[in-house]
């Protein structure tokens, strides 16, 4: 007997942004209740759960609010890939026959401002943080600076990515930044890390997302338009990839973990990048979206400049990217961020994305997250 396939039959979200007086865990509970309601099931029907948060406390503590049913609830802590890792684990649990119905949840609540990081937690000397080299925004600037040099990408392309994000965010009731910004405003904003200005970076924020997973052969019980999770893959960095929090890098360049994860996700799904009708890729800053489009196999290196000029990645373009406004418009509550992408693709494939709905009845979607210290998680979804 072959392993069961996996479908997503319920999605829930707590709006992203700043919510004074609401705990991260409460946002997670809100998202779980919404996802359960979407699937038409109760918490007592759930066989297992995986969840995570960086700064919002233990995910499994939410059983106190949701109900003490005794189910196995595993906490996941894997940086920006927290949500992706929880999804992989839940998917594997269904395939392994450990349960028929599972919940995946991610939430977070971060202090304002760029993340501070503890060198010791990454196996690095204290000097690395003390002398001002351990800053994620710096890494992204260093990476895009080289990429722009190698592949003739301009500052105008960076501004176009950010302007698109805020345009899309304006159409998304769950987004944080809902005011469109012009390319001129974005380019004129204070320089955070050359060549990236303030409006080209996302901000740490707050929010929660939950998904209900079921065996695909049972999905019609819960949902009239289930979305199949065709693959979910995590990878860490290999020797030679250009990664955040690296005091030294190899002379030789290897593919990034995003390349590895995307390639494996497409291979496992039996679906090629050319079939993707809607994609969410990690846009921690505007340059990251440009780099990740190529790393995920969705375009060629250097092609992004022309794509952005032509609006290929707009909602009504040939390959809509970050249709919900991405990290730039939603902010980045780390535990929730990767699952937000999956939420968005499921909403799009069901045709329920409202004002930001991709036209043409999209059937295949893709998600990608990237984070410290060189991890990536990708999914391929289809209807």
């Amino acid at each position: 007997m072959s392993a069961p396939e996996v479908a997503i039959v319920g999605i829930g979200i707590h709006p992203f942004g700043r919510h004074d007086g609401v705990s991260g865990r409460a946002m997670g509970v809100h998202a779980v209740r919404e996802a359960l309601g979407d699937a038409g099931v109760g918490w007592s029907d759930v066989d297992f759960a995986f969840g995570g948060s960086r700064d919002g406390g233990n995910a499994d503590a939410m059983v106190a609010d949701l109900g003490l049913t005794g189910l196995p609830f595993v906490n996941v802590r894997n940086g920006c890939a927290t949500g992706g890792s929880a999804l992989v684990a839940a998917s594997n649990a269904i395939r392994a026959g450990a349960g028929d119905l599972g919940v995946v949840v991610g939430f977070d609540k971060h202090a304002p401002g760029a993340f501070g990081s503890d060198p010791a937690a990454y196996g690095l000397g204290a000097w690395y943080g003390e002398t001002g080299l351990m800053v994620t925004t710096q890494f992204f600037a260093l990476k895009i600076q080289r990429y722009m040099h190698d592949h003739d990408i301009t500052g105008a392309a960076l501004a176009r990515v950010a302007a698109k994000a805020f345009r899309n965010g304006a159409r998304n009731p769950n987004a944080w930044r809902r005011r469109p910004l012009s390319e001129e405003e974005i380019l004129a904003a204070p320089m955070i890390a050359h060549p990236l200005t303030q409006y080209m970076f996302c901000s740490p924020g707050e929010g929660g997302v939950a998904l209900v997973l079921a065996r695909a052969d049972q999905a019609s019980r819960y949902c009239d338009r289930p979305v199949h999770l065709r693959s979910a893959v995590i990878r860490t960095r290999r020797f030679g990839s250009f990664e955040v929090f690296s005091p030294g890098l190899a002379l030789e360049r290897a593919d990034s973990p995003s390349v590895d994860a995307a390639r494996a996700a497409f291979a496992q799904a039996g679906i090629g990048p050319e079939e993707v009708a809607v994609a969410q890729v990690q846009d921690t800053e505007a340059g990251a979206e440009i780099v990740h489009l190529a790393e995920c196999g969705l375009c060629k290196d250097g092609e992004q400049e022309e794509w952005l000029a032509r609006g290929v990645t707009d909602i009504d373009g040939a390959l809509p990217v970050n249709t919900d406004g991405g990290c730039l418009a939603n902010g980045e509550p780390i535990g929730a961020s990767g699952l937000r992408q999956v939420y968005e693709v499921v909403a799009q494939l069901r045709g329920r994305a409202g004002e930001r709905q991709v036209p043409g009845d999209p059937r295949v979607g893709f998600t990608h997250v990237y984070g410290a210290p060189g991890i990536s998680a990708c999914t391929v979804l289809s209807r």
Partner: protein
Amino acid sequence: MPAQPVADGLFTWPADQPRLIGSRCRECGVVTFPAQRSCPRCTSVDVEERLLGRTGTLYTWTVQGFRPKPPYAGPEEFEPYGVGYVELPGEVLVETRLTVADPDRLRIGMAVELVIVPFGDQVTYAFAPSEGDAVDASRA
């Protein structure tokens, strides 16, 4: 008494010609910085200390525009500083502070050399444009 380095084992100091301290794998030859006790490429634990070259080229760069959160221990009065990766030929790329923080005076491929600079009451390593390869801001 000379100022103390920000960490032991990072660079030779005091020294007329200071060098960064890396390591080299005796099995596959890969050089790493800072020194580590195993090889990230071939997984061997047979590694030796290696003093790295003092000159290289700028692989990429940026300018840090805001004061980082702790554990950053630089001056309260924040001044933007340059950061880059320097390619030491045949060895390794090293992440470093740059003595130049003006985008018009930085370009990928420029020649740079190791210097030891004050950092609070300690010293740390940085790279500075090599003489003769400084970018003329008026022409950039």
